Protein backbone atom coordinates (compact mmCIF):
# COMPACT_ATOMS: atom_id res chain seq x y z
CA UNK A 1 0.00 0.00 0.00
CA UNK A 2 1.53 3.31 -1.09
CA UNK A 3 1.16 6.60 0.70
CA UNK A 4 -2.23 8.14 -0.03
CA UNK A 5 -2.92 11.87 -0.03
CA UNK A 6 -6.33 13.32 -0.97
CA UNK A 7 -8.01 16.69 -0.99
CA UNK A 8 -11.42 16.06 0.57
CA UNK A 9 -12.58 19.67 0.38
CA UNK A 10 -11.07 23.17 0.20
CA UNK A 11 -10.30 23.02 3.91
CA UNK A 12 -9.78 19.32 4.58
CA UNK A 13 -7.05 16.95 3.41
CA UNK A 14 -6.45 13.27 4.11
CA UNK A 15 -3.13 11.45 4.51
CA UNK A 16 -2.86 7.68 4.88
CA UNK A 17 0.63 6.46 5.83
CA UNK A 18 -0.26 3.03 7.20
CA UNK A 19 2.53 0.53 6.57
CA UNK A 20 5.19 3.23 6.90
CA UNK A 21 7.70 3.36 9.75
CA UNK A 22 9.79 6.25 11.07
CA UNK A 23 10.60 8.77 9.79
CA UNK A 24 8.14 8.63 6.88
CA UNK A 25 4.79 9.23 8.68
CA UNK A 26 6.01 12.33 10.54
CA UNK A 27 7.89 13.67 7.52
CA UNK A 28 4.91 13.24 5.18
CA UNK A 29 2.74 14.93 7.82
CA UNK A 30 5.22 17.81 8.08
CA UNK A 31 5.36 18.24 4.29
CA UNK A 32 1.57 18.10 3.92
CA UNK A 33 1.03 20.65 6.74
CA UNK A 34 3.58 23.02 5.21
CA UNK A 35 1.99 22.91 1.78
CA UNK A 36 -1.66 23.08 2.83
CA UNK A 37 -3.43 26.44 2.72
CA UNK A 38 -3.76 28.32 6.03
CA UNK A 39 -6.91 27.35 8.00
CA UNK A 40 -6.94 23.89 6.38
CA UNK A 41 -7.01 20.70 8.43
CA UNK A 42 -5.33 17.37 7.80
CA UNK A 43 -6.59 13.95 8.83
CA UNK A 44 -3.64 11.56 9.23
CA UNK A 45 -3.96 7.78 9.58
CA UNK A 46 -0.89 5.77 10.61
CA UNK A 47 0.04 2.55 12.41
CA UNK A 48 3.54 3.29 13.69
CA UNK A 49 3.26 4.18 17.42
CA UNK A 50 6.57 6.03 17.77
CA UNK A 51 5.65 8.35 14.85
CA UNK A 52 2.65 9.53 16.89
CA UNK A 53 4.93 11.07 19.49
CA UNK A 54 6.93 12.78 16.77
CA UNK A 55 3.69 14.18 15.31
CA UNK A 56 2.73 15.50 18.78
CA UNK A 57 6.18 17.12 18.97
CA UNK A 58 5.88 18.52 15.46
CA UNK A 59 2.56 20.18 16.31
CA UNK A 60 3.98 21.60 19.53
CA UNK A 61 6.99 23.05 17.72
CA UNK A 62 5.07 24.45 14.73
CA UNK A 63 2.04 25.60 16.71
CA UNK A 64 -0.43 23.33 14.90
CA UNK A 65 -3.61 22.38 16.74
CA UNK A 66 -4.48 18.71 17.28
CA UNK A 67 -8.27 18.75 17.19
CA UNK A 68 -8.79 15.00 17.41
CA UNK A 69 -6.61 12.04 18.29
CA UNK A 70 -7.72 8.46 18.71
CA UNK A 71 -6.39 4.92 18.52
CA UNK A 72 -8.13 1.69 17.67
CA UNK A 73 -6.50 -1.69 17.14
CA UNK A 74 -3.04 -0.21 16.68
CA UNK A 75 -4.23 2.35 14.06
CA UNK A 76 -3.86 6.02 15.00
CA UNK A 77 -5.89 8.95 13.65
CA UNK A 78 -5.07 12.63 13.99
CA UNK A 79 -7.01 15.67 12.89
CA UNK A 80 -4.54 18.55 12.77
CA UNK A 81 -5.39 22.14 11.89
CA UNK A 82 -2.96 24.85 10.93
CA UNK A 83 -4.90 27.73 12.37
Amino acid at each position, binding site marked *: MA*VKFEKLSESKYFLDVRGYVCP*HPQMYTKKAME*KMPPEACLEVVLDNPSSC*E*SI*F*DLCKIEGYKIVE*YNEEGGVFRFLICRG
Partner: protein
Amino acid sequence: MKEMVFKRASSKYRVYAWLIIASGFLLSLIAMLYDIRFSYMVAYFWAGIVYGLFLQYGHFCMASATRDLFAIGTTRVAVGILIAITLYGFTSLIDRLIGIAPFHANPIGVHTLIGGFIFGVGISFAGGCSSGSLYKSGEGNIAAMIVVTSVAVAQALFVSTLKFPFVPYLVPESWMKAAEQQTNMGIPKEFVSSWYDYFLAGYAWNLKGLSGADLIPSDNIFLREFIGNFLLGVIVPTLFFLMITYIFFFRKRYIRNVKSFQSVFTDIKGLLNMIVDSKRTALAGLGLGVASGLHMWVLGILRERLGIDNFGELLQQMGFTSGLTIQGTAFDPGYWYITTQEAQWMAWTIEKIFRVDLYHNIFFGVENGILNPLINAADLMIIGIILGAAFMALYRGEFKWRKPTGEQVIFALMGGTLMGIGARLALGCNIGALFVPAANGDYSGWLFFIAMGAGAFSGVKITTWWINRRVQKEFEF
Protein backbone atom coordinates in the same frame (compact mmCIF):
# COMPACT_ATOMS: atom_id res chain seq x y z
CA MET B 1 -3.95 20.46 22.34
CA LYS B 2 -4.72 16.77 22.76
CA GLU B 3 -2.22 14.76 24.76
CA MET B 4 -0.90 11.29 24.07
CA VAL B 5 -2.21 9.06 26.81
CA PHE B 6 -1.16 5.71 28.21
CA LYS B 7 -3.83 3.29 27.11
CA ARG B 8 -4.56 -0.19 28.37
CA ALA B 9 -5.35 -2.80 25.76
CA SER B 10 -8.38 -5.08 25.73
CA SER B 11 -8.33 -7.90 28.26
CA LYS B 12 -7.54 -10.46 25.51
CA TYR B 13 -4.30 -8.68 24.62
CA ARG B 14 -3.40 -8.26 28.27
CA VAL B 15 -3.79 -12.02 28.73
CA TYR B 16 -1.38 -12.58 25.80
CA ALA B 17 1.01 -10.13 27.41
CA TRP B 18 1.02 -11.95 30.76
CA LEU B 19 1.31 -15.30 28.96
CA ILE B 20 4.64 -14.16 27.52
CA ILE B 21 5.99 -13.31 30.97
CA ALA B 22 4.56 -16.47 32.56
CA SER B 23 6.08 -18.69 29.81
CA GLY B 24 9.45 -16.98 30.19
CA PHE B 25 9.31 -17.43 33.95
CA LEU B 26 8.32 -21.10 33.69
CA LEU B 27 11.03 -21.94 31.13
CA SER B 28 13.65 -20.11 33.23
CA LEU B 29 12.58 -22.03 36.33
CA ILE B 30 12.64 -25.42 34.56
CA ALA B 31 16.09 -24.69 33.08
CA MET B 32 17.54 -23.69 36.47
CA LEU B 33 15.96 -26.64 38.28
CA TYR B 34 17.49 -28.93 35.64
CA ASP B 35 20.92 -27.35 36.02
CA ILE B 36 21.56 -24.24 38.12
CA ARG B 37 24.33 -23.24 35.68
CA PHE B 38 21.59 -22.22 33.23
CA SER B 39 21.14 -19.21 35.56
CA TYR B 40 23.83 -17.44 33.54
CA MET B 41 21.72 -17.65 30.37
CA VAL B 42 18.54 -16.87 32.32
CA ALA B 43 20.17 -13.65 33.62
CA TYR B 44 20.90 -12.49 30.07
CA PHE B 45 17.35 -13.41 29.00
CA TRP B 46 15.68 -11.40 31.79
CA ALA B 47 18.02 -8.46 31.25
CA GLY B 48 16.72 -8.52 27.67
CA ILE B 49 13.10 -8.58 28.89
CA VAL B 50 13.70 -5.51 31.07
CA TYR B 51 15.44 -3.64 28.23
CA GLY B 52 12.54 -4.51 25.91
CA LEU B 53 9.96 -3.24 28.42
CA PHE B 54 11.64 0.13 28.82
CA LEU B 55 12.53 0.52 25.14
CA GLN B 56 8.90 0.04 24.10
CA TYR B 57 7.53 2.07 27.01
CA GLY B 58 9.60 5.14 26.07
CA HIS B 59 9.61 4.46 22.30
CA PHE B 60 13.30 4.72 22.91
CA CYS B 61 15.20 4.72 19.66
CA MET B 62 18.53 6.37 18.81
CA ALA B 63 17.39 6.78 15.21
CA SER B 64 14.55 8.99 16.47
CA ALA B 65 16.97 10.82 18.74
CA THR B 66 19.29 11.90 15.96
CA ARG B 67 17.05 11.83 12.89
CA ASP B 68 13.98 13.59 14.34
CA LEU B 69 16.26 16.22 15.84
CA PHE B 70 17.31 17.20 12.30
CA ALA B 71 14.05 16.40 10.50
CA ILE B 72 11.53 17.90 12.92
CA GLY B 73 13.44 19.54 15.76
CA THR B 74 12.30 17.01 18.39
CA THR B 75 14.63 16.95 21.41
CA ARG B 76 12.64 14.42 23.49
CA VAL B 77 14.47 11.16 22.66
CA ALA B 78 17.94 12.72 22.41
CA VAL B 79 17.50 14.04 25.96
CA GLY B 80 16.13 10.66 27.14
CA ILE B 81 19.23 8.93 25.81
CA LEU B 82 21.54 11.38 27.56
CA ILE B 83 19.63 10.74 30.82
CA ALA B 84 20.01 6.99 30.29
CA ILE B 85 23.76 7.35 29.67
CA THR B 86 24.16 9.43 32.86
CA LEU B 87 22.18 6.97 34.99
CA TYR B 88 24.02 3.99 33.57
CA GLY B 89 27.25 5.94 34.10
CA PHE B 90 26.41 6.22 37.79
CA THR B 91 25.39 2.57 38.28
CA SER B 92 28.40 1.26 36.34
CA LEU B 93 30.64 3.56 38.43
CA ILE B 94 29.43 1.68 41.52
CA ASP B 95 30.03 -1.64 39.72
CA ARG B 96 33.58 -0.64 38.87
CA LEU B 97 34.32 0.74 42.34
CA ILE B 98 33.33 -2.57 43.93
CA GLY B 99 35.40 -4.34 41.30
CA ILE B 100 32.84 -6.42 39.41
CA ALA B 101 32.43 -4.51 36.15
CA PRO B 102 33.69 -6.35 33.10
CA PHE B 103 33.95 -3.25 30.88
CA HIS B 104 37.10 -2.42 28.86
CA ALA B 105 37.51 0.66 26.67
CA ASN B 106 37.04 0.04 22.93
CA PRO B 107 39.87 0.79 20.49
CA ILE B 108 39.44 4.34 19.22
CA GLY B 109 40.40 5.41 15.70
CA VAL B 110 39.23 6.51 12.29
CA HIS B 111 37.20 3.28 12.01
CA THR B 112 34.93 4.63 14.80
CA LEU B 113 34.13 7.68 12.66
CA ILE B 114 33.65 5.78 9.38
CA GLY B 115 31.64 2.95 10.95
CA GLY B 116 29.53 5.37 13.02
CA PHE B 117 28.78 7.49 9.95
CA ILE B 118 27.69 4.48 7.83
CA PHE B 119 25.62 3.21 10.77
CA GLY B 120 23.99 6.65 11.09
CA VAL B 121 22.98 6.72 7.42
CA GLY B 122 21.64 3.18 7.89
CA ILE B 123 19.41 4.01 10.86
CA SER B 124 17.88 6.92 8.96
CA PHE B 125 16.89 4.60 6.10
CA ALA B 126 15.89 1.70 8.34
CA GLY B 127 13.66 3.78 10.60
CA GLY B 128 15.25 2.43 13.76
CA CYS B 129 18.60 1.73 15.43
CA SER B 130 19.69 -1.75 16.55
CA SER B 131 17.76 -1.61 19.83
CA GLY B 132 14.88 0.36 18.29
CA SER B 133 14.40 -2.22 15.54
CA LEU B 134 14.25 -4.97 18.16
CA TYR B 135 11.54 -3.26 20.23
CA LYS B 136 9.59 -2.45 17.05
CA SER B 137 9.82 -6.14 16.06
CA GLY B 138 8.15 -6.84 19.41
CA GLU B 139 5.33 -4.48 18.37
CA GLY B 140 4.64 -6.73 15.35
CA ASN B 141 6.39 -4.43 12.87
CA ILE B 142 7.53 -6.61 9.94
CA ALA B 143 9.72 -3.85 8.43
CA ALA B 144 11.69 -3.79 11.72
CA MET B 145 12.09 -7.59 11.54
CA ILE B 146 13.52 -7.17 8.01
CA VAL B 147 15.95 -4.58 9.41
CA VAL B 148 17.10 -6.95 12.19
CA THR B 149 17.58 -9.78 9.67
CA SER B 150 19.45 -7.51 7.22
CA VAL B 151 21.77 -6.30 9.99
CA ALA B 152 22.52 -9.93 10.88
CA VAL B 153 23.07 -11.08 7.26
CA ALA B 154 25.24 -8.06 6.38
CA GLN B 155 27.48 -8.65 9.39
CA ALA B 156 27.78 -12.43 8.99
CA LEU B 157 28.81 -12.07 5.35
CA PHE B 158 30.91 -8.90 5.76
CA VAL B 159 33.22 -10.44 8.36
CA SER B 160 33.66 -13.79 6.67
CA THR B 161 33.28 -13.74 2.91
CA LEU B 162 34.96 -10.63 1.56
CA LYS B 163 37.77 -12.50 -0.17
CA PHE B 164 37.32 -11.42 -3.77
CA PRO B 165 40.39 -10.81 -5.96
CA PHE B 166 40.22 -7.04 -5.45
CA VAL B 167 40.51 -7.32 -1.70
CA PRO B 168 44.35 -7.32 -1.49
CA TYR B 169 44.32 -3.81 -2.99
CA LEU B 170 42.20 -2.67 -0.05
CA VAL B 171 44.51 -4.17 2.56
CA PRO B 172 47.42 -1.83 3.40
CA GLU B 173 50.91 -3.34 3.61
CA SER B 174 51.08 -2.39 7.31
CA TRP B 175 47.93 -4.44 8.04
CA MET B 176 49.45 -7.43 6.23
CA LYS B 177 52.62 -7.24 8.32
CA ALA B 178 50.78 -6.75 11.61
CA ALA B 179 48.42 -9.63 10.83
CA GLU B 180 51.40 -11.84 9.97
CA GLN B 181 52.85 -11.11 13.40
CA GLN B 182 49.57 -12.29 14.92
CA THR B 183 49.81 -15.58 13.01
CA ASN B 184 53.39 -15.98 14.28
CA MET B 185 52.03 -15.51 17.80
CA GLY B 186 49.59 -18.38 17.57
CA ILE B 187 46.57 -17.51 15.43
CA PRO B 188 46.28 -20.26 12.80
CA LYS B 189 46.89 -18.93 9.26
CA GLU B 190 43.62 -20.36 7.91
CA PHE B 191 41.76 -17.91 10.16
CA VAL B 192 43.31 -14.86 8.49
CA SER B 193 42.07 -14.55 4.94
CA SER B 194 39.17 -12.08 4.63
CA TRP B 195 39.39 -8.29 4.49
CA TYR B 196 37.85 -8.09 7.96
CA ASP B 197 40.50 -10.46 9.36
CA TYR B 198 43.22 -8.04 8.23
CA PHE B 199 41.18 -5.10 9.53
CA LEU B 200 41.02 -6.70 12.99
CA ALA B 201 44.45 -8.33 13.32
CA GLY B 202 46.35 -5.77 11.27
CA TYR B 203 44.64 -2.58 12.43
CA ALA B 204 42.03 -2.64 15.23
CA TRP B 205 43.97 -4.86 17.64
CA ASN B 206 46.89 -2.44 17.56
CA LEU B 207 44.82 0.54 18.63
CA LYS B 208 44.36 1.72 22.19
CA GLY B 209 41.26 2.89 24.02
CA LEU B 210 40.87 6.33 25.59
CA SER B 211 38.78 6.78 28.71
CA GLY B 212 38.33 9.52 31.27
CA ALA B 213 40.56 7.60 33.68
CA ASP B 214 43.47 7.95 31.23
CA LEU B 215 43.37 11.72 31.86
CA ILE B 216 44.02 11.26 35.59
CA PRO B 217 47.73 11.11 36.52
CA SER B 218 47.13 8.94 39.56
CA ASP B 219 46.70 5.26 40.41
CA ASN B 220 44.03 6.00 43.01
CA ILE B 221 41.00 3.93 41.97
CA PHE B 222 38.46 6.45 43.30
CA LEU B 223 40.07 9.40 41.50
CA ARG B 224 40.38 7.42 38.27
CA GLU B 225 36.82 6.12 38.36
CA PHE B 226 34.91 9.05 39.89
CA ILE B 227 36.80 12.08 38.57
CA GLY B 228 38.14 10.40 35.41
CA ASN B 229 35.59 7.99 34.02
CA PHE B 230 32.42 9.42 35.61
CA LEU B 231 32.90 13.20 35.74
CA LEU B 232 35.24 13.70 32.77
CA GLY B 233 34.08 10.73 30.73
CA VAL B 234 30.31 10.82 31.30
CA ILE B 235 29.06 14.02 32.97
CA VAL B 236 31.12 16.58 31.01
CA PRO B 237 30.27 15.12 27.54
CA THR B 238 26.59 14.67 28.58
CA LEU B 239 26.34 18.33 29.68
CA PHE B 240 28.09 19.37 26.47
CA PHE B 241 25.57 17.50 24.28
CA LEU B 242 22.64 18.72 26.39
CA MET B 243 23.80 22.31 25.91
CA ILE B 244 24.25 21.80 22.15
CA THR B 245 20.75 20.29 21.91
CA TYR B 246 19.27 23.14 23.96
CA ILE B 247 21.03 25.95 22.09
CA PHE B 248 20.41 24.68 18.56
CA PHE B 249 17.04 22.93 18.86
CA PHE B 250 15.09 24.02 21.95
CA ARG B 251 16.10 27.52 23.06
CA LYS B 252 14.45 29.55 20.30
CA ARG B 253 11.14 27.78 20.82
CA TYR B 254 11.34 28.13 24.61
CA ILE B 255 12.17 31.85 24.55
CA ARG B 256 9.27 32.37 22.10
CA ASN B 257 6.92 30.58 24.49
CA VAL B 258 8.02 32.43 27.63
CA LYS B 259 7.72 35.68 25.60
CA SER B 260 10.91 37.32 26.91
CA PHE B 261 14.48 36.51 27.78
CA GLN B 262 15.25 37.83 31.25
CA SER B 263 18.54 36.44 32.42
CA VAL B 264 20.73 33.37 32.45
CA PHE B 265 18.10 31.85 34.76
CA THR B 266 15.68 31.78 31.82
CA ASP B 267 18.14 29.51 30.04
CA ILE B 268 18.62 27.32 33.11
CA LYS B 269 14.83 26.99 33.39
CA GLY B 270 14.68 26.27 29.66
CA LEU B 271 17.30 23.54 29.98
CA LEU B 272 15.35 21.92 32.82
CA ASN B 273 12.16 22.29 30.80
CA MET B 274 13.81 20.44 27.91
CA ILE B 275 14.91 17.63 30.24
CA VAL B 276 11.41 17.05 31.64
CA ASP B 277 9.68 17.75 28.30
CA SER B 278 8.65 14.12 28.00
CA LYS B 279 8.39 12.40 31.35
CA ARG B 280 7.83 9.03 29.71
CA THR B 281 11.04 9.08 27.65
CA ALA B 282 12.98 10.41 30.64
CA LEU B 283 11.51 7.63 32.81
CA ALA B 284 12.46 5.01 30.21
CA GLY B 285 15.98 6.48 30.13
CA LEU B 286 16.12 6.20 33.91
CA GLY B 287 14.94 2.57 33.83
CA LEU B 288 17.38 1.61 31.09
CA GLY B 289 20.26 3.29 32.88
CA VAL B 290 19.59 1.49 36.16
CA ALA B 291 18.88 -1.85 34.42
CA SER B 292 22.17 -1.68 32.48
CA GLY B 293 24.16 -1.23 35.68
CA LEU B 294 22.27 -4.01 37.45
CA HIS B 295 22.82 -6.31 34.46
CA MET B 296 26.61 -5.83 34.75
CA TRP B 297 26.43 -6.35 38.52
CA VAL B 298 24.38 -9.58 38.32
CA LEU B 299 26.66 -11.09 35.64
CA GLY B 300 29.74 -10.11 37.64
CA ILE B 301 28.33 -11.90 40.71
CA LEU B 302 27.35 -14.97 38.66
CA ARG B 303 30.82 -15.22 37.12
CA GLU B 304 32.30 -15.17 40.59
CA ARG B 305 29.86 -17.79 41.93
CA LEU B 306 30.22 -20.07 38.90
CA GLY B 307 34.01 -19.65 38.90
CA ILE B 308 34.27 -18.55 35.26
CA ASP B 309 35.72 -15.64 33.31
CA ASN B 310 33.84 -16.37 30.11
CA PHE B 311 30.60 -18.09 29.12
CA GLY B 312 32.58 -20.56 26.93
CA GLU B 313 34.04 -22.16 30.07
CA LEU B 314 30.54 -22.72 31.43
CA LEU B 315 29.35 -24.24 28.16
CA GLN B 316 32.29 -26.64 28.18
CA GLN B 317 31.52 -27.64 31.78
CA MET B 318 27.93 -28.31 30.71
CA GLY B 319 29.05 -30.44 27.75
CA PHE B 320 28.36 -27.96 24.93
CA THR B 321 31.50 -27.58 22.84
CA SER B 322 30.18 -27.02 19.33
CA GLY B 323 30.74 -23.56 17.88
CA LEU B 324 33.14 -22.27 20.55
CA THR B 325 36.20 -20.26 19.44
CA ILE B 326 39.59 -21.94 19.01
CA GLN B 327 40.40 -20.85 22.60
CA GLY B 328 37.20 -22.44 23.86
CA THR B 329 35.54 -19.08 24.57
CA ALA B 330 32.23 -17.59 23.41
CA PHE B 331 30.91 -14.07 22.94
CA ASP B 332 30.03 -12.89 26.44
CA PRO B 333 30.19 -9.10 26.83
CA GLY B 334 28.82 -9.05 30.39
CA TYR B 335 26.66 -6.05 29.54
CA TRP B 336 24.04 -4.88 27.05
CA TYR B 337 25.08 -5.69 23.51
CA ILE B 338 23.18 -6.39 20.30
CA THR B 339 24.88 -6.77 16.93
CA THR B 340 27.57 -9.42 17.50
CA GLN B 341 25.09 -12.06 18.66
CA GLU B 342 22.79 -11.19 15.74
CA ALA B 343 25.73 -11.95 13.42
CA GLN B 344 26.25 -15.22 15.31
CA TRP B 345 22.68 -16.49 14.91
CA MET B 346 22.67 -15.58 11.24
CA ALA B 347 26.05 -17.29 10.65
CA TRP B 348 24.74 -20.39 12.47
CA THR B 349 21.57 -20.37 10.31
CA ILE B 350 23.49 -19.84 7.03
CA GLU B 351 25.92 -22.65 7.92
CA LYS B 352 23.03 -25.03 8.67
CA ILE B 353 20.98 -24.19 5.57
CA PHE B 354 23.70 -23.77 2.95
CA ARG B 355 26.35 -26.08 4.47
CA VAL B 356 29.05 -23.42 4.05
CA ASP B 357 31.92 -22.55 6.38
CA LEU B 358 31.67 -19.15 8.05
CA TYR B 359 33.75 -20.18 11.08
CA HIS B 360 37.30 -19.91 9.74
CA ASN B 361 37.90 -16.21 10.26
CA ILE B 362 38.93 -14.04 13.20
CA PHE B 363 35.50 -12.61 14.05
CA PHE B 364 33.79 -15.96 14.51
CA GLY B 365 36.58 -18.56 14.92
CA VAL B 366 38.91 -16.53 17.16
CA GLU B 367 36.80 -13.89 18.90
CA ASN B 368 33.14 -14.91 19.25
CA GLY B 369 32.29 -18.42 18.07
CA ILE B 370 29.14 -19.52 16.24
CA LEU B 371 26.84 -20.98 18.87
CA ASN B 372 23.42 -22.53 18.54
CA PRO B 373 21.19 -19.50 19.27
CA LEU B 374 19.20 -21.46 21.87
CA ILE B 375 22.26 -21.90 24.10
CA ASN B 376 23.85 -18.55 23.25
CA ALA B 377 23.39 -16.35 26.34
CA ALA B 378 23.75 -13.11 24.36
CA ASP B 379 21.21 -14.32 21.79
CA LEU B 380 18.77 -15.06 24.60
CA MET B 381 19.08 -11.38 25.52
CA ILE B 382 17.92 -10.50 21.97
CA ILE B 383 14.94 -12.82 22.32
CA GLY B 384 14.27 -11.25 25.74
CA ILE B 385 14.25 -7.71 24.26
CA ILE B 386 11.72 -8.70 21.58
CA LEU B 387 9.49 -10.51 24.11
CA GLY B 388 9.75 -7.68 26.68
CA ALA B 389 8.72 -5.17 24.02
CA ALA B 390 5.92 -7.48 22.87
CA PHE B 391 4.63 -7.65 26.46
CA MET B 392 4.55 -3.86 26.80
CA ALA B 393 3.05 -3.33 23.32
CA LEU B 394 0.33 -5.91 23.96
CA TYR B 395 -0.41 -4.46 27.37
CA ARG B 396 -0.71 -0.91 26.02
CA GLY B 397 -2.70 -1.87 22.94
CA GLU B 398 0.15 -0.96 20.58
CA PHE B 399 0.74 -4.44 19.21
CA LYS B 400 -0.34 -4.98 15.62
CA TRP B 401 1.09 -7.08 12.81
CA ARG B 402 2.19 -4.25 10.53
CA LYS B 403 2.77 -5.21 6.92
CA PRO B 404 5.29 -2.89 5.23
CA THR B 405 4.90 -1.32 1.79
CA GLY B 406 7.32 -2.37 -0.98
CA GLU B 407 9.09 0.96 -0.57
CA GLN B 408 9.55 0.30 3.16
CA VAL B 409 11.00 -3.14 2.46
CA ILE B 410 13.66 -1.58 0.21
CA PHE B 411 14.46 1.08 2.84
CA ALA B 412 14.66 -1.64 5.51
CA LEU B 413 17.02 -3.79 3.43
CA MET B 414 19.27 -0.85 2.53
CA GLY B 415 19.28 0.55 6.05
CA GLY B 416 19.86 -2.82 7.71
CA THR B 417 22.76 -3.62 5.40
CA LEU B 418 24.44 -0.26 6.06
CA MET B 419 23.86 -0.69 9.81
CA GLY B 420 25.48 -4.15 9.73
CA ILE B 421 28.56 -2.94 7.84
CA GLY B 422 28.83 0.22 9.97
CA ALA B 423 28.52 -1.76 13.20
CA ARG B 424 31.31 -4.12 12.23
CA LEU B 425 33.64 -1.31 11.14
CA ALA B 426 33.00 0.60 14.39
CA LEU B 427 33.22 -2.65 16.41
CA GLY B 428 29.65 -2.24 17.70
CA CYS B 429 26.30 -0.54 17.20
CA ASN B 430 24.43 2.21 19.08
CA ILE B 431 24.59 0.02 22.20
CA GLY B 432 28.01 -1.70 22.11
CA ALA B 433 29.85 1.22 20.48
CA LEU B 434 27.85 4.11 21.96
CA PHE B 435 25.58 3.60 24.95
CA VAL B 436 27.81 1.23 26.94
CA PRO B 437 31.20 2.88 26.26
CA ALA B 438 29.87 6.44 26.67
CA ALA B 439 28.35 5.50 30.04
CA ASN B 440 31.63 3.94 31.14
CA GLY B 441 33.73 7.03 30.37
CA ASP B 442 35.14 5.62 27.13
CA TYR B 443 35.51 8.45 24.59
CA SER B 444 35.09 6.08 21.62
CA GLY B 445 31.38 6.03 22.52
CA TRP B 446 31.10 9.81 22.24
CA LEU B 447 33.07 9.79 18.96
CA PHE B 448 30.65 7.18 17.61
CA PHE B 449 27.75 9.40 18.78
CA ILE B 450 29.09 12.36 16.75
CA ALA B 451 29.74 10.18 13.67
CA MET B 452 26.32 8.52 13.95
CA GLY B 453 24.71 11.96 14.24
CA ALA B 454 26.53 13.12 11.09
CA GLY B 455 25.44 9.95 9.29
CA ALA B 456 21.84 10.38 10.45
CA PHE B 457 21.94 14.01 9.23
CA SER B 458 23.07 12.83 5.76
CA GLY B 459 20.47 10.06 5.82
CA VAL B 460 17.75 12.60 6.68
CA LYS B 461 18.83 14.76 3.72
CA ILE B 462 18.51 11.78 1.35
CA THR B 463 15.18 10.68 2.87
CA THR B 464 13.85 14.27 2.71
CA TRP B 465 14.87 14.50 -0.95
CA TRP B 466 12.99 11.23 -1.63
CA ILE B 467 9.89 12.37 0.27
CA ASN B 468 9.90 15.82 -1.41
CA ARG B 469 10.09 14.10 -4.79
CA ARG B 470 7.09 11.94 -3.97
CA VAL B 471 5.14 14.84 -2.47
CA GLN B 472 5.70 16.90 -5.64
CA LYS B 473 4.71 14.01 -7.90
CA GLU B 474 1.79 12.55 -6.00
CA PHE B 475 0.31 15.20 -3.69
CA GLU B 476 -2.13 17.65 -5.21
CA PHE B 477 -2.84 20.81 -3.27
